[in-house]
């Protein structure tokens, strides 16, 4: 069973969200997602300043098996893309919830948000998908 930290929120498209002290949101893909994708060979994250819209693709993760879009869970402005991933995409595999974060976003006040799940709900989703 993949790890599902209790202090995060999740989406049904397998992103995780962490609220940072300054109110911005750190976003990554879950342990379950990285496991399903396999070893990543390429990660494309947005640059600071880019506007992202909830539910729309905002990053690309590519493994030897597949390339997948990552969907923005909130509408807002990117404050940082993880610079480490350009040379070390494998950080997403080894540390999905830490060093493998993809981007930080400052949500637009009153902006749209994707349907978010609690850790328990996300664990249930994983089980349904046969993790």
């Amino acid at each position, binding site marked *: 069973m993949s790890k599902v930290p209790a202090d995060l929120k999740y989406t049904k498209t397998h992103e995780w969200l962490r609220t940072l002290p300054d109110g911005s949101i750190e976003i990554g893909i879950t342990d379950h997602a990285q496991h*399903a994708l396999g*070893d990543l*060979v*390429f990660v494309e994250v947005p640059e600071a300043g880019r506007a992202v819209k909830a539910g729309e693709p905002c990053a690309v993760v590519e493994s*030897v*098996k*597949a390339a*997948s879009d990552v969907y923005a869970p909130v509408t807002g402005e990117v404050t940082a893309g993880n610079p480490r991933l350009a040379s070390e995409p*494998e950080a997403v595999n080894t540390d999905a919830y830490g060093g493998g974060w993809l981007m930080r976003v400052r949500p637009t006040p009153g902006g749209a948000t994707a349907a978010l799940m609690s850790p328990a709900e996300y664990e249930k989703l994983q089980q349904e*998908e*046969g993790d």
Partner: protein
Amino acid sequence: MRTREKVIFEHSHPGRGAADQWPHDPGSAAIADIPQKLRRTQRPLLPEVGELEAVRHFTRLSQLNFSIDTHFYPLGSCTMKYNPKACNQYAMLPEFLARHPLGPESHGQGFLACMHELQEMLKEVTGMQAVALSPMAGAHGEFAGVAMIRAFHRSRGDLARNEIIVPEAAHGTNPATATMCGCVVREIPVDAAGDVDLAALEAAVGPNTAGIMLTNPSTLGVFERRIEQVARIVHAAGGLLYYDGANLNAILGKVRPGDMGFDVIHMNLHKTFSTPHGGGGPGAGAVGVSARLEPFLPIPIVGREGERYRWLAERDRPQSIGRLSAFMGNAGVLLRAYIYMRMLGREGMSRVGEYATLNANYLLALLKERGFDAAYPSRRASHEFIITLKKQARDLEVTAMDFAKRLLDYGFHAPTTYFPLLVPECLLIEPTETEGKDTLDAFVAAMSQIQTEAEQEPERVTSAPHTMPVRRLDDVRAAKQLDLTWKPTAQS
């Protein structure tokens, strides 16, 4: 066991060579007009081997091929079917080979007649109103198709239509094509049985809808049963239907995309119609259209006036999306497809669909009997089907990739792995119509044997292949540090 063949430089020894085949010294007069600064000052680094060594080297390399002429190849028509040798033989007739594309129409009437008949046969088998042959690959045909959809809307002043709807079971190239054509992609889900979610489709269509791109049967290996409703919904919203011909093999001679309500179709002649395309090309992505899209077809098209054939070009088709290739596409490939269709005839064409489907369903039934899980157990296979090795990955830690690699040891090419992305740990298996029962039974026996190995000695499967020239490759490193060039070491 086959062993790795060295690169020819590694066979090299200074002074060896086929002396009688060395070029004669051209003498200084022959190179007098080449400027000094462009002349080589050092001898080129060339391998030095004897004639027999060179023959053996290249013969051994050719024997390393894992090809449809030597092995069962369950990638199927999605990659390449068996290429009947007669197609090649007739396409190589000197009258075809020596024809110059700039020669006058009067000198190429035989060739033009073949191309005209090919257009007519493709119209008949797909139920479309008109066909153009010039796109040079499947993706090129897709590009032509979506470009025509856009041209159609523009010609009516309907400028807001820039959205292409793509079900998640569509062919992977479809979203890329739509994006290339400047459209916005809207993905819609399929339901648990693999059919398009009609409610999601209803919600997605509107005044911005340019069209929908569909493969039927879909990449899930099942026939889209509600295709007529899909067509009604999209047409009612003012959009057009695009048929990706990737899976045309399943329905050849049985169901026609034109009758399902499609407005545009591309056909992979290099897949469904059996032309060779080793190493990625050349292909032929002919397009067919309904009457309202005919003016937009790419040119040139072969027209017939009485007993004469001629190219229809700009002056005949002012609304055409234009030319997509020099001359008229991959002529040699088109000829091979033409000969294939003529050899099959109308009845043979239906048998392709029938046997492709029968073989897939036979394989699926047998694999299910041996305990493998179908991804869509309630559905009949089309010409291909998906099994999922989720259970094996979870309980035995033996993945779909491990099965695929181990199949090589049993003398079978691996099926498509990890596609479609919707199904975890999947193998997409397509036997095609040309395989006999013996081969299919042997494949199932190998799969069962691998399953037993996975249960009893998983290491044997997870470390496969054992009998190939190379063992398991580090595909992650290969993807990150691509290094394809042999570099000389010591003696140079």
